[in-house]
């Protein structure tokens, strides 16, 4: 029996002549956090909405908990919790406690009202209208509503988008706790740093297509991208000269700099020697560098 809770095969979604998602295949394994990562407009939300059954794929198949989601919407939503992308979906005049009451009424064995309010840290705001919550509080409330039915699987569309670092930290702490209790999470995000830190598997999307798929650390290791040294562009330096260095494994030109990636710190010494410079900018390679290497473009969160 497969351990996959979500199976997507050759998914495509077109809107007229526009292709939002093309040939996306992925599997989300039980007990993992799977990240759909990419800039805005990459096709993350469309993929998620096809997985949730809100949109009909143009082609390809989707199975969630072994069932096609559009045919088994109610049965599936009893076992999965879903967070939509937008934060303002709750009626402005609804109070926090009333939203929790309503969501609890949908399930046979929901979390208690106190448990739900504790999960989102809003025990003392139960009489507050949702419109008066901060963005982070509203997001936490919506994630808690997704968890009211004690789901096995959470599908979260940009749970931390637009939030400050403290709110993001709190949300990820909650999600990691859910995973530790055996839950599975499919999450979309355009924050590379949190995908790298929290996801066991990720799928890097760009213009609706998969660029890379796998464990973030392993993906970086496979490409021997541990450190990045930035070398100012000079007429005598070119890609071949940089790649000829013993410890340079990947090179990409970004505006007026060469980004040189390597697996060891020795690369730094080699580059100093090659360029006759005393100091060069050095930092650990990050997931956004992988995006750069696979797409040839610097990572931007906006639509490009």
């Amino acid at each position, binding site marked *: 029996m497969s351990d996959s809770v979500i199976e997507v095969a050759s998914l495509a979604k077109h809107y007229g002549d526009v292709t939002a998602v093309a040939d996306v295949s992925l599997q989300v394994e039980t007990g993992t956090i799977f990240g759909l990562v990419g800039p805005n407009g990459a096709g993350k939300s469309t993929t998620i909405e096809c997985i949730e059954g809100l949109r009909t794929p143009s082609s390809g198949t989707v199975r969630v908990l072994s069932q096609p989601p559009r045919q088994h919407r109610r049965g599936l*939503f009893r076992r999965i919790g879903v967070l939509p992308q*937008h934060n303002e*979906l709750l009626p402005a005049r*609804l109070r926090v406690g009333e939203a929790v009451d*309503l*969501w609890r*009424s*949908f399930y046979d064995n929901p979390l208690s009202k106190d448990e739900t309010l504790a999960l989102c840290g809003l025990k003392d705001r139960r009489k507050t209208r949702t419109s008066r919550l901060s963005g982070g509080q509203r997001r936490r409330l919506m994630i808690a509503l997704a968890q009211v039915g004690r789901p096995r699987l959470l599908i979260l569309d940009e749970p931390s988008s637009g939030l400050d670092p403290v709110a993001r930290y709190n949300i990820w702490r909650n999600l990691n706790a859910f995973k530790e209790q055996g839950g599975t999470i499919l999450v979309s995000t355009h924050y590379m740093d949190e995908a790298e830190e929290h996801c066991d598997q990720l799928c890097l999307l760009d213009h609706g297509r998969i660029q890379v798929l796998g464990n973030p650390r392993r993906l970086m290791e496979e490409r021997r991208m541990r450190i990045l040294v930035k070398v100012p562009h000079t007429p005598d330096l070119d890609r071949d000269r940089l790649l000829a260095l013993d410890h340079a494994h990947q090179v990409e030109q970004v505006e007026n700099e060469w980004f040189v990636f390597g697996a060891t710190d020795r690369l730094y010494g080699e580059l100093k020697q090659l360029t006759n410079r005393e100091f060069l900018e050095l930092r650990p390679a990050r997931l956004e560098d992988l995006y750069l290497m696979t797409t040839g473009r610097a990572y931007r969160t906006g639509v490009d």
Partner: protein
Amino acid sequence: MNFKMMRTLFRTDLLIFVREPAAAFFTFAFPVLLLSILGEIFGRFPFQFTLPDGTVVDTTYISVFFPGFVAFIIANLALQSAPIFLASQRTTGWFRMLQLSPLRLSWVIIIRVVMYFAIFVFSYAVMFVLARQIFDLRFFGQLLPFGLALLLCFVSFGSIGFLLGGLFNSASTTQAVASIIFFLMYFTSGSAIPRDQFPDWLFRATELNPMTHVVDLLIAVWTGQAFDQLWVSALVVALVGVAGFVLTPLTFRWDAEG
């Protein structure tokens, strides 16, 4: 069936509705205001009509035209409140949020209809008690036919309200179109101004207004008229309802993005 879910959804819908100041004012306060003002101006005028058995009844204006106020409540709920509420909840994404729950979506519609019916019954009861206390309102018909006529008018116009609520993506467009339709229907139906005051051409033209037939039907059953006096209006109201029921599933959308 999950009664707890239905009860909670009903309560939530009602709370959201009554906390909307414009909807609450036009649904609860405005009809009372209208009845008080128009009743004070015209309500006590003497009025004479004949029952089917030939009995001539001397009464007051409000005891005959009270159903016009009831028609106002129905039209206001069905043609203004319902479509605007539906469109705004669709565009703000509340329906999308509900789609992401195990809730059977047909219950959203059923509970919404039950809520509007409860609001209608409450508004009607308030108006009836008020008119009875202040203007000595009298009822000349029979309860069952009047109840059935009320139900027919409510269901018929309600279906048009749900049709309107699904036609446009934008809540503001829905509000504008619903308001135009409502006020046009209201002022030419005989609910605001008795149609016997209209010039002949307007009297005949306003027979095309479905709300005219709601007013005529309710007045006819309120004043105990025989079936042959009201069947045309009853048929028109029923046909409007059938049209609403046939067309609403074709236009209704849960999601503004389609």
